[in-house]
């Protein structure tokens, strides 16, 4: 009797399962056409607010975190969308990850700040039409008491002193590294090299050297909690200044220059990059007087000084600044 019922259930349950699977597949396929929940904005925004699969192609870029976390992209995004008539999708990641998105063809352009990695990206054929559009500087911050005594040294001297003091007394002197292949992490490696140390040795030299593997903001919060030294870009530092308890200690040095570049993905190498014309318009737009002026004014009201400097008008005059044609000649 018992087994009889089980057999009957078995016979009936198979068609039920198959029906349900089919229903599920159909429903999944129909989902984009499902009624959209009411949004509070106007009708055209309602359509774009909840699509599952986009009807129109979207222009995707991957940008470095400092430009995103400081709110610059939030500010610029609607202007480009309006001007170019596209949806601009901005994904943020460290330079290393952003370039990987580019190699895989998941974005149409990258905005990054790591000259060496960019050169390789272009040499490998993934990127074309590199242009620069903004710059600022790095700085070394740390506890106001400055236990390693680095104030106003050069970046490389300061790193050497932090290394020596950290090796001697790791409880008192610590250094937090991004450790995430970001542009800032690459800059840190360059400074260790300039200080006459091998990065691989520094990395494993002791408990004073902390690899956080996080974005700039979280690393600054960590440095503040632990009283550590840290290499940071000035824009993120200013944006976090009121939230963290670390003081700027070294602010001058040739190595501190930080240039932001935009690179388009090469459709000949990466077959899935289909938005090259939009990418070109985007590059030229970033170099336009209009945007350069907006960058010059961004953050002044809130922080008393701009977070990023425009390149327009030759404002960048130090060694290592981009050449004139790198920020003036429009992409064809």
């Amino acid at each position, binding site marked *: 009797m018992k087994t009889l019922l089980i057999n009957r259930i078995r016979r009936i349950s198979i068609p039920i399962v198959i029906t349900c699977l089919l229903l599920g597949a159909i429903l999944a396929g129909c989902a984009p056409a499902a009624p959209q929940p009411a949004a509070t*904005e106007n009708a055209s925004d309602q359509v774009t607010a909840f699509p599952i699969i986009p009807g129109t192609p979207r222009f995707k870029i991957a940008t470095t975190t400092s430009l995103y976390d400081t709110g610059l992209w939030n500010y610029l995004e609607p202007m480009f969308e309006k001007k170019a008539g596209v949806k601009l*999708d901005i994904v943020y990641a460290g330079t290393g990850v952003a370039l990987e998105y580019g190699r895989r063809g998941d974005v149409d352009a990258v905005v990054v700040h790591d000259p060496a990695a960019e050169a390789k990206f272009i040499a490998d054929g993934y990127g074309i039409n590199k242009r620069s559009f903004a710059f600022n500087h790095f700085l070394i911050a740390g506890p106001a008491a400055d236990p390693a005594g680095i104030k106003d040294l050069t970046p490389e001297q300061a790193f050497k002193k932090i290394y020596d003091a950290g090796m001697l007394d790791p409880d008192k002197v610590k250094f937090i590294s991004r450790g995430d292949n970001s542009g800032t992490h690459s800059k840190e490696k360059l400074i260790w090299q300039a200080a006459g140390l091998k990065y691989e040795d520094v990395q494993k030299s002791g408990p004073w050297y902390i690899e956080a593997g996080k974005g700039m903001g979280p690393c600054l919060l960590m440095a503040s909690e632990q009283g550590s030294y840290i290499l940071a870009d000035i824009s993120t530092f200013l944006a976090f200044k009121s939230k963290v308890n670390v003081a700027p200690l070294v602010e001058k040095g040739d190595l501190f220059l930080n240039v932001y570049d935009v690179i388009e993905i090469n459709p000949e190498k990466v077959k899935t990059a289909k938005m090259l014309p939009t990418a070109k318009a985007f590059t030229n737009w970033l170099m336009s007087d209009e945007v350069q002026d907006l960058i010059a004014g961004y953050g002044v009201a809130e922080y008393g000084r701009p977070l990023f400097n425009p390149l327009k008008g030759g404002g960048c005059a130090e060694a290592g600044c981009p050449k004139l044609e790198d920020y003036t000649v429009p992409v064809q």
Partner: protein
Amino acid sequence: MQEIWRALVQAVNLIISLDTEVVQISLRSLYISASSIIIAALFCVPIGSLIHFHDFRGKRVVINVIQTFYSLPTVVVGLLVFLFISRSGPLGGLELLFTPAAIIIGQVILIMPMLTGMTIGALRGVDKTIRDTALSSGAGTAQAIRAILFEARFAVVGVLILGFGRAISEVGAALMLGGNIRGYTRVLTTAISLETQRGDLVLSLALGIILIGIAMVVSVIMNILLQRY
């Protein structure tokens, strides 16, 4: 500690003022996770029933494997789906990466083992007595199945609420597959992650409170519906 109080106040403010962006993000969270749970349920409840009603070799092993995958880390799901749907992956032609659909795929995969395994558990909980009762009262097969499913409804809905909770609260897959694009793939958890990264801890916490609020509303509605039917 002050932050927690300020976050509560800000959460209430955001809800009362119906802040456009927060409302959109919340609705998007609800929409994506509800889609995930519906799709996953359509697969998992039947599969769970199928496994439960059939005796076959290795049934125990299958159930053990399913239960092992309860602890599937969200970032691993995110990474695997990323490799499949990235434009240079095998499903790249569908251009799903950094879309809401990508998040749904990730969440469905994430909650499937839990939904399947716990459906089996829910049916097991009622099966024996009901089967006997149905048989002794001379019920047909369809009626017996209906009776079993009906008796298991509280447990199954509990499973669905749990799955919804896991979907709406996960951040790893949503961040990796959706990309946290403003106005498109930003959901509550990825917004919280971003605001924490930006250092706005109070806003992060306020968004967290809103997320809990949504979960509460969903679970209350489900329970009211259950009481009624």
